[in-house]
C-alpha cells in the first residue's frame, strides 16, 4: 500500500494533468464528469465508508450545491467563484441540521430517511418552490468561470478546476485518516458502544461526518453546474444516490476502489454507447457478481498500519 501511495499518486497526478490536452472535447467532458463524480463518491465515502452511516441520499447535497451556484449566478448575477463558499456551507449546514434528529436511527431506518430527504429535495426543485429553481426544466445559461477579469470558458479550465477540487478532497481524506477525527470515526464504525465507552462523542462525530460529506458534495455540485452551465432535477434523482452508495461499497471504501467504481459506472457507459439500453441491466448483474465474489469490495480499505514487529510477535506467540 505504501508503494502505491508513493509511486501511484505522482503518476496519477501527471496523467491527470496531461490528460485534457490529448483528449478531444467529447472525452474532455467525460473526464470532467469522472472527476466530479469521484469527488461526490469520496464525500459519500466519508459518511458511509468512514463513519458507517447508511446514507442513500448523497445526490441531495450534490444537487443542492449545483442549484445554489445556478441560482446565485443566473438569478442574482454572482460570479461562479463567489458562489463556492455558499455552495459548500449551505449543504454542510443542511447536512448538520438534517442529520441531527435522525442520527440515532438504526441503520436501515437511516437509509430510508436519507432516501426520503433526496426525494423531497427533487420534488421541491421540480415544483419550483419559491420560484427560483426553474421547475422541471431547471436553470440554464450560467456564466463561465472568470478569474481576475479573464473568462475561462474552455472545457480545459473546468477540467483543471475539477482536478483541483479532487486533489483538495483527496487531501482532506488523507488528513482525516491521520487525525483524531478520522480515528474517532473509524472506532465509531467498528463498534459504536466501545467508541462511546472510551469517551468518543459519537453523536458529534456522526454529525461532523455528515456536515463534511455534504460540504464536499456541494462543492462538486458547483463544478457540475459550471460544466453544463445548467442544472435540472433529473441529475440529482434518487437513482444517482443509489449509484454513489453502490460505488463506495463495491469499491471497498478505499480511494483506488472508488476511482475504479466511478470509472466503471460513469466512464465505461460512454465507451460502450451502443449498449446504452443494456447499461443498467449489466450494472445490476455486475453489482450482484462483485458482491458475491468480493463481499468487502473490490479493493477493501485498510485502516492505519500495524507495525511489523507486532504482527510477528503475535504469530510467534500463537
Amino acid at each position: 500500500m505504501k508503494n502505491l501511495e508513493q509511486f501511484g499518486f505522482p503518476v496519477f497526478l501527471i496523467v491527470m494533468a496531461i490528460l485534457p490536452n490529448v483528449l478531444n472535447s467529447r472525452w474532455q467532458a467525460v473526464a470532467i464528469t469522472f472527476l466530479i463524480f469521484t469527488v461526490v463518491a469520496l464525500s459519500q465515502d466519508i459518511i458511509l465508508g468512514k463513519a458507517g452511516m447508511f446514507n442513500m441520499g448523497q445526490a441531495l447535497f450534490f444537487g443542492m450545491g449545483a442549484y445554489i451556484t445556478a441560482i446565485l449566478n443566473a438569478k442574482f448575477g454572482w460570479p461562479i467563484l463567489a458562489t463556492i463558499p455558499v455552495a459548500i456551507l449551505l449543504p454542510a449546514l443542511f447536512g448538520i441540521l438534517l442529520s441531527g434528529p435522525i442520527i440515532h436511527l438504526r441503520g436501515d431506518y437511516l437509509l430510508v430517511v436519507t432516501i426520503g430527504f433526496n426525494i423531497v429535495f427533487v420534488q421541491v426543485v421540480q415544483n419550483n418552490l419559491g420560484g427560483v429553481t426553474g421547475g422541471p426544466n431547471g436553470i440554464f445559461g450560467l456564466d463561465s468561470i472568470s478569474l481576475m477579469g479573464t473568462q475561462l470558458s474552455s472545457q480545459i479550465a473546468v477540467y483543471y478546476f475539477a482536478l483541483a477540487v479532487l486533489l483538495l478532497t483527496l487531501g482532506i481524506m488523507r488528513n482525516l485518516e491521520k487525525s483524531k477525527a478520522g480515528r474517532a470515526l473509524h472506532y465509531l464504525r467498528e463498534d459504536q458502544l466501545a467508541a462511546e465507552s472510551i469517551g468518543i462523542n459519537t453523536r458529534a462525530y456522526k454529525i461532523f461526518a455528515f456536515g463534511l460529506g455534504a460540504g464536499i458534495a456541494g462543492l462538486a455540485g458547483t463544478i457540475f453546474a459550471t460544466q453544463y452551465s445548467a442544472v435540472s432535477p433529473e441529475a440529482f434523482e434518487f437513482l444517482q444516490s443509489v449509484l454513489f452508495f453502490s460505488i463506495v461499497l463495491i469499491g471497498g471504501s478505499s480511494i483506488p476502489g472508488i476511482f475504479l467504481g466511478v470509472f466503471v459506472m460513469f466512464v465505461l457507459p460512454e465507451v460502450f454507447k451502443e449498449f446504452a439500453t443494456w447499461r443498467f441491466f449489466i450494472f445490476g448483474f455486475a453489482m450482484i457478481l462483485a458482491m458475491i465474489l468480493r463481499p468487502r469490495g473490490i479493493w477493501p480499505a485498510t485502516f492505519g498500519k500495524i507495525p511489523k514487529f507486532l504482527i510477528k510477535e503475535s504469530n510467534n506467540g500463537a
Partner: protein
Amino acid sequence: MDIFLQQLANGLTIGSIYALVALGYTMVYGVMKLINFAHGDMVAASAFVGLTIYTQVLGQSTSLIAVVIIFLLSAVAMACVGVLLERLAYRPLRQAPRLSAVVSALGASLMIQNGIMLIWGPQMRIFPELIPQIYWDLGGVVVSLIQVIILALSLILMVALYLFVEKTRMGAAIRASAIDQDASRLMGINVDKVIALIFIIGSSLGAVAGLFIGLYYRGITFNMGWQYGLYAFVAAILGGIGNIPGAMFGGMLLGLFQAFIAGYVSSTWADAFTFILLILILIVRPTGLLGERVAEKV
C-alpha cells in the same frame, strides 16, 4: 364531506395495494434483516407477466376463469423469480457484511427493472380491462367494482397470511427464524426452507399487488416498481419493519394519508408529504408505530 368519503374509498384501495407489497418487504426483513430492493420491481414485472398471459396465452379472454388463471400464473411466476433471486443473489451473501447484501439487492432491482424494459419496451403499456367497469354512486361517492374487489381480496389474503403465521407449524417456524436463526436451527427448523417459503409468499402477494396496480391504474411502465416499492417500504417502516400486522396497518395508513393529501392539498406534493410523515414518525418512534423497542445488544 364528499371529498372525504371519496378519498377514503380511494385511500383504502391504494392502501391495500401498499399493504400487500409491504408484507413482502417486512417478511424478508424479519428473517433476513435485508431490505429486498428488488421486491418493488417484481411487483412491476408481475403486471407485465399478467399482460403477456392475457394476450399470448388466453387470447384476450376476460372470463372469470381467465382472470383467475392470470392471477395464479403471475403469482407462480413471481414466486419462482423470488426463490431464484434468493438462491443466486442473497444466499451467497448471508455471512457477508450486511451492506453487501443491500448492494446485491440494488443490483437485482436494476436487473429486473431493465430486464422488463428490454423485454416489453420502455413505453407505457395499457393493462387489459379484466374486470368490467361497474360504478356505484353512493350519495355522491363513486365506488367501482375494481376497488371493492381489490379491498376484499387484499383483506382475505392478509387475514389468511396472519392466520398462517400465527396458527400453523410453518408459521411458528417463520416466527422462530425471525427471532433467532441459529437457535431455530438447533430446534430442528430448516431455516433455508423458511427463507424460501418467505420469498414464495412475499413474491406472490407482490404479484397480486402488481396485477391490482394494472387493473386500477391501467397504465404500466417498466420503472413503476421503484415508486410502488418505495411507498410500500415506507409503509412497512411506518408500521415497524419485521412486523406483519404492522405492514398491513402501515400500508392502509399510508394509502389513506396520500389520498387525503391528494384530495385536500395537491398530488404534486405527495412524495414530499409521505417522507415528511415518515421522518416525523421515526423521530418520535424510532422503530415504527407497531415496532417493538429493541434494547441495544451488548
